[in-house]
């Protein structure tokens, strides 16, 4: 399946993946981030309950330097 993450398409095995698994695969487990799935924010408390499927649009954001 293909998932759009931060504007680029990524391929994954299988039909679905939990948000938690995705974060682990992206090496982000130790980072602070927030996730949006198809425009809806996913609470960090429910990462293992939320599934991503083919065609989903995911945004993963963090804090960077700014004025």
């Amino acid at each position, binding site marked *: 399946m293909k998932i759009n*993450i*931060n*504007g*680029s398409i990524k391929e994954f095995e299988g039909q679905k993946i939990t948000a938690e698994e995705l974060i682990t695969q*992206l*090496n*982000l*487990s*130790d*980072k*602070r*981030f*927030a*996730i*949006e799935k198809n*425009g809806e*924010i996913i*609470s*960090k408390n429910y990462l293992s309950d939320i599934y991503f499927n083919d065609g989903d649009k995911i*945004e*993963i*954001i*963090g*804090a*960077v*330097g*700014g*004025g």
Partner: protein
Amino acid sequence: MGDKILNINDKLVIAGRSFQSRLLVGTGKYTDFEQTRSAIDSSEAQIVTVAIRRINLGQSPNEPSLLQFLPTNKFTYLPNTAGCYSADEAIRTLRLARELLDGHNLVKLEVLGDPDTLFPNVVETINAAKILVKEGFDVMVYTSDDPIIAKQLEDIGCCAIMPLASLIGSGMGILNPWNLEIIIDKANVPVIVDAGVGTASDASIAMELGCDGVLMNTAIALAKKPILMASAMKKAVESGREAFIAGRMDKKLYNASPSSPIKGLIK
């Protein structure tokens, strides 16, 4: 802020949070995180603005992050909406920021209207502010130096009004002190000059006008020696505040009285 009696020990209070420092600083445009942290330490600022952006997915797990250099238990984060050109974009960004920062609801709203000048779009800013305040955000709002818009933003429930002194990143200083003075005079929430400060005297002038604080980024980050400039800005904000509370002498074109006695002149 009306006829309130001011004291030099008064803290800056924003939405119930108290701050010793009246200098707020951005975290952009520095060479690296070490320089960012050193400059902010030198400024003694307690509130730091940050931008919300897509995480770089290619990064290694050990790559340093801003949050490591500026821990959230030591600094008050002010996530901003820089780069947003509509109310919808700004609201979306700040909802994500609140999730990122575990419910932290103090934010800087900034909706731009033009990529060349970075002038704020006050219509979109007002639209966004209404929704964000309803959703429980404490909104510090970047705006033009229009006193009517400033008052409307306060009436909506914004916890601090942050008019520009001149355009973002311009370093042009305080271009319209008269408008700022009207905004300050009419406001019942803190007024913080945001954008346009170029050097220490600009920050002092803002504080001498009666601003409650000054927010800057480029003036420190793009100084030849950012850490030294950060220290200069800290002193400038403090001295401007002291001068404002001390109350300056009246100006007069001539007929000034000499400081040394006239009596007893040697003849």
